[in-house]
C-alpha cells in the first residue's frame, strides 16, 4: 500500500492519540507526579470517552437523537457486577473475570438495545428522543427495585424487599434494591480502560467505513432514497442502535468495576448522565468520533481541575461550554476560524509575495 487513504490515516491518528495519552499518563504516574485526584479520574475518563464514541454512532452516524444512553450503561454495569460478585471465588484472576464481565455487560446491553430499538426506532426526531429518555429512566428505576440473592438452593429474585427473597441462613444478597451491589471486586484498571476504548474505536471506525456504515449513513441522509436502492431501513437502524447500546454497556462494566458500591442514582445512570454524554458528542462534533472522545476527556477533567475555585466551578464550566459551543458551531465563528486558520494565513502570504 503505497498511498494510504485519508481515512486510514485519520483513523491511525485517532488510535495514536489514545496510545500517546496512555503512555504519557503511565509515565507521569510512574514517576510519582500525578495527584491522587487525577489517578482516580483515569478510569472514569475512559468510561466517558467510550460513552461519547458509542453515542456518536446513534446521534452522528444514524442521525437519531437518543437521550437514554445512560440506561444501557446501567444495564451493562449491573449485569456485569452481578456476574463478578457471583464469580469472585470461582474465577480468581481479575483480568479473566473482567473480560468475561465485559462480554456479559455488552451482550445484556445489546439485547436491551434491540428490545428498546424495535418500538423506539419507528419514531423519528424529537419523539424518538423523548421516548428514549423515558426508557432510560425506566431502566434505572427497574434496577433500583431489583432484589437478588443466592443460597444453597440457587438464585432468588424479588421486586419487593430482602425478606421476600426467602434466603436460607447461608444466603448472600447480591443486589439489594436501591442500595445496589456492594463488595464486588474492583477489577477495572486504566490499562483495561484504554484497551476497551481502543476496541470501541476500532469497532465504530471500521463499522462506519464499511458496507454497513454506508447503509446507515445513507438512511441518515435520505431515508426515502435509501429505501429506493434496496436498503432495509429497520434492520440497519436497529443494528446501529444496538451496537451503540452494547458499547455503552461496555462503558458501564468499566464504571461498575471501578467502584466498591454500585448504585443506580439519577447522577450516574439518570437522564443527567445521558445529557452529559450528548453534550460531549455535540461539542466534539456530531459524527466526528475523534472529536467526541477528546471533548469527553476535556469536559470531564475541567470541573476537577477547577475544583480549587469552589462554588464558581460549575459557573465557569457552564461559560466554557457556551463559548466552546459558539466557537464550534456558529456560522460566524466558523467563518472567522477559516479566515484566520494558520494554513490559510501562510497560504495568503505566499500569494501576496507573487
Amino acid at each position, binding site marked *: 500500500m503505497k498511498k494510504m487513504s485519508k481515512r486510514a490515516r485519520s483513523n491511525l491518528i485517532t488510535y495514536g492519540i489514545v496510545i500517546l495519552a496512555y503512555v504519557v499518563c503511565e509515565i507521569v504516574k510512574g514517576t510519582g507526579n500525578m495527584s491522587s485526584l487525577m489517578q482516580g479520574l483515569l478510569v472514569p475518563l475512559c468510561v466517558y470517552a467510550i460513552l461519547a464514541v458509542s453515542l456518536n454512532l446513534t446521534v452522528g452516524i444514524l442521525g437519531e437523537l437518543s437521550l437514554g444512553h445512560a440506561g444501557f450503561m446501567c444495564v451493562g454495569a449491573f449485569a456485569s457486577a452481578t456476574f463478578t460478585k457471583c464469580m469472585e471465588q470461582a474465577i480468581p484472576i481479575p483480568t479473566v473475570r473482567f473480560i468475561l464481565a465485559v462480554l456479559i455487560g455488552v451482550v445484556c446491553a445489546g439485547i436491551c438495545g434491540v428490545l428498546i430499538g424495535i418500538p423506539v426506532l419507528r419514531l423519528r426526531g424529537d419523539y424518538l428522543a423523548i421516548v428514549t429518555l423515558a426508557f432510560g429512566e425506566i431502566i434505572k428505576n427497574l434496577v433500583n427495585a431489583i432484589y437478588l440473592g443466592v443460597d444453597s438452593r440457587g438464585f432468588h429474585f424479588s421486586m419487593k424487599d430482602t425478606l421476600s427473597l426467602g434466603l436460607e441462613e447461608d444466603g448472600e444478597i447480591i443486589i439489594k434494591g436501591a442500595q445496589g451491589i456492594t463488595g464486588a471486586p474492583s477489577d477495572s484498571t486504566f490499562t483495561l480502560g484504554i484497551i476497551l476504548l481502543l476496541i470501541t474505536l476500532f469497532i465504530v471506525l471500521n463499522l462506519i467505513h*464499511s*458496507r454497513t456504515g*454506508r447503509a446507515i449513513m445513507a438512511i441518515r441522509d435520505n431515508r426515502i*432514497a435509501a*429505501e*429506493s*436502492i*434496496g*436498503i432495509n431501513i429497520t434492520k440497519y437502524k436497529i443494528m446501529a442502535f444496538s451496537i451503540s447500546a452494547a458499547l455503552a454497556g461496555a462503558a458501564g462494566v468499566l464504571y461498575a468495576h471501578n467502584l466498591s458500591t454500585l448504585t443506580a442514582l439519577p447522577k450516574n445512570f439518570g437522564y443527567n448522565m445521558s445529557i452529559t454524554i450528548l453534550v460531549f458528542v455535540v461539542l466534539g462534533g456530531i459524527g466526528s468520533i475523534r472529536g467526541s472522545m477528546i471533548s469527553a476527556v476535556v469536559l470531564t477533567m475541567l470541573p476537577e481541575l477547577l475544583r480549587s475555585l469552589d462554588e464558581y466551578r460549575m459557573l465557569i464550566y457552564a461559560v466554557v461550554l457556551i463559548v466552546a459551543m459558539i466557537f464550534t458551531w456558529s456560522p460566524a465563528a466558523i467563518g472567522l476560524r477559516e479566515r484566520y486558520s494558520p494554513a490559510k494565513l501562510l497560504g495568503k502570504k505566499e500569494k501576496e509575495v507573487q
Partner: protein
Amino acid sequence: MPMLEVKNLGISFGGLRAVDDFNLTIEKGELYGLIGPNGAGKTTVFNMLTGVYKPTDGKIFLDGEDMTGKSTVELNKEGIARTFQNIRLFSDLSVLDNVKAALHNQKEYMYSTLTGILRLPSFYRLEKAMDERAMELLEVFGLEKEAHYKASNLPYGKQRELEIVRAMATNPKLLLLDEPAAGMNPNETQGLMDTIRFVRDKFDMTILLIEHDMKLVAGICERLTVLNFGQILAAGGTAEVLKDPKVITAYLGE
C-alpha cells in the same frame, strides 16, 4: 412478454382520485415517456411502481410476475430503480460512496457486518471491486473527477446525473427517471439525452421517464403516454401523440 405491464392501476387519497384506470405496457429495451401537465399524477404513478404508495386498484407485472403491493426494498431487488424529481442524494457522503451505497444488494459485492468490522481480507478485495465498479458507472456520466467530492457540493446538473448513476448501480431491469432534465439548460439537456440513449444501449436497460421538456421527449422516447387529471389522455408512438389535438389542448390550453 412485455417487461412492464400495468393494468387498471388506480389510487385514491381520501376522496381524491389521483390516478384512475392507468394502463401501460413497456417492451424490453424500450425508451418510454410519461408526460402530462403539472399535477396530472405522473409522479404518483412512479410512486406506485416503486412501492412508495400501495395502489387502491389494479395490478403491476414485471417480466410477467405480479409485483402489486410489494415494498420499495423488494421492488428494488426485483429490478426497479428510480430517480427523484426533487433530488434526494446522500448529501453528506462522497459521490463515490453514494454509488457504493447503491451496490449494497449486489451479490458479488456483499460482505457481512463482522467482516467489515474485523477488516478481513475479503473486505479489502470487495471494497476495491466496488470502487472499480462505481468508478466505471461514474465514467458513463463523466463524474469520475468529482468522485471524492461531497455529493451536496456538486453543481445541480451533476447531482441529477449522480442520481441516475446511483439508480443504475442497483443493476435494474427497469429504470424510472423522474424529470431528469428539470432545471438543466438546453446544452445540458442535449448531453443528457445522448447519455440516456447510451445507457439504454450499453447497459441493456428499459427506461421509463417523466419529462416536461418536449424537446427531450420528442428526441429520445419511442412511445408516450399522456396523463391528464389522473387519466390517460393519449398513448402511442411519440410523433402521433404529440400531434394529437387533445394533447396540444391539455398542454397549451384552449
